[in-house]
């Protein structure tokens, strides 16, 4: 049973790895996270 849980965890982790690498490769990692404000640095 623990091995099933571990296999599921590892599967989810691999899916996350693939999704992150694909997203970063395709978007150049410029996506803005959900609902986040930004420091206002202006032109400085």
């Amino acid at each position: 049973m623990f091995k099933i849980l571990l296999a599921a965890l590892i599967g989810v982790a691999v899916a996350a790895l693939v999704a992150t690498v694909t997203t970063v490769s395709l978007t150049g990692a410029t996506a803005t996270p959900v609902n986040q404000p930004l420091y206002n640095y202006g032109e400085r």
Partner: protein
Amino acid sequence: MPPTAPNTAEPAGMPHTAQNTAPNADTRARLAAALLGLALGCLALGPALGPGFTLLQDMVFVPDPAFSRFTFGLAGGAARVVPSDAVVTALAQVLPAELVQKLILLAIFVLGCTGAALLLPSRSMGPRLVAGAFYVWNPYVAERLLMGQWALLLGYAGLPWVVRAVWSGRRVAAAVLPAAVSGFAAMTVTAITALPVVAARRRFAVRVVAVLVGFSLPWLVVTALRPRGIAGDPVGVDAFAARADTPFGAVGSLLSLGGIWNAHAVPTGYETVAGAVARLVLTLVGAGFFLRGGLPYRRGLGVAAAVGVGVACVGVSEPGRQAFRGAVEVWGGFAVFRDAQQFVAPLALVVALGLGLLAERVAHDRVWVGALALVPVAVLPTLAWGAFGRLGAVPYPASWTAAREVIRADRAPGDVLVLPFESYRQFAWNGGRAVLDPAQRFFAVPGRRVVSNDVVRVGNLVVASEDPRAQAVERVLEGSSPDLPAAGFRYVLVDAGTAEERQRFGGWLGRAKVLVDADDLRLYRFDGPVAPVPAEQAR
């Protein structure tokens, strides 16, 4: 699923002693965890370990730092740099400052990984390494590293050692030392973690409380000496409240150990649904195994994690923010709760230990344990290589060093003003990374105050200055032709600014001499008399 009690734990004793683990196994685990922490630290920091300084957000280190009133919290805003700046400045007297920075950053990973590994009672090394790996490779560490909050992370790295010491009643002072070096925020996180744990070990309570209070004295005393310095702006409650950085809302993000307020501090590629699901599942599984496990400090650490998450969640709702605003208005010291996401730190320890307990169940199978140790890296791969290139190392420009030599050699009285009068910079020579202006520390010299702004702008919100001197200067600069010598300034540094701003500054500084003139910095000096600074602004 049956309750998971580690097969080696002694519920009433220390989590890891000769009672349940052989000394040799313990030594091997300590060494292996330290090496794993070092490897993960090198992987995470990557280019930041190259020659030069890592300057990002709140992380500011400078070459050959000098002690000043600011170092000891006797000038500027709240005593957030006490005593961390003094410790760094002292270390930099015997080691190059850039080496001090790299050693501190690596120490976070080594200390954190080793502490979490040793806190888990196990005869097998694998489960301990799983706990250690997760504790130093998770969204909390990534986001706080990208915020440049090395001092908070040093305190975070000490948390497992604190739990261990508090439970055993031994070496409490040594365990709290990393947080003590770090200062106010880290000590608050440590207290929230330690007090529920010691509640079950009352015979040690007096000692633990005494250590926590004693190690807080550096900033408590300074704060008492300068009560105006902690006039926290309640606007910060809204600006720094935890935010959603996953599709699961703010609370879901906090439970995933993320949820920091600043978009610039969110790891690259963090927004994928698969990644968010994986991180949330990982924390829920880890927390579940911890709660069902038989670790002796389970109740205390579980309460600490619940309190920490609870505090972080208060700012998520409007009534909660209103309560925090009211608290900050009553006493500025409550401003530490504005950036409440930092209090999910005990949850990170809970999850790390829970994942270690899960690994304990398959400890005989190295393949499974090895795979589980890699899971934290897989769910957050962009922490690697300097958080995907966002951490780097750069030298300070030669013009900065030249200007500092001029200022240090001058015995004439008068302070240094840094323009533009804004807190943060995105220097071209620093790869455009946003950083708190290093000028205040770089140009520090005994007897001469370096005044820069401490206002923080977050979106449309402006968190007001806490520094009486900066507030006064702000009023002076509102005029069309500010008289800077009358405001106490001998030197003016212009280290950034738009073309329009530089032209305006040129008008203000028409009667000052230009002593250093480079693309990245100009140093102006006013000859003649400079007015003394009123006592209420100097403090």
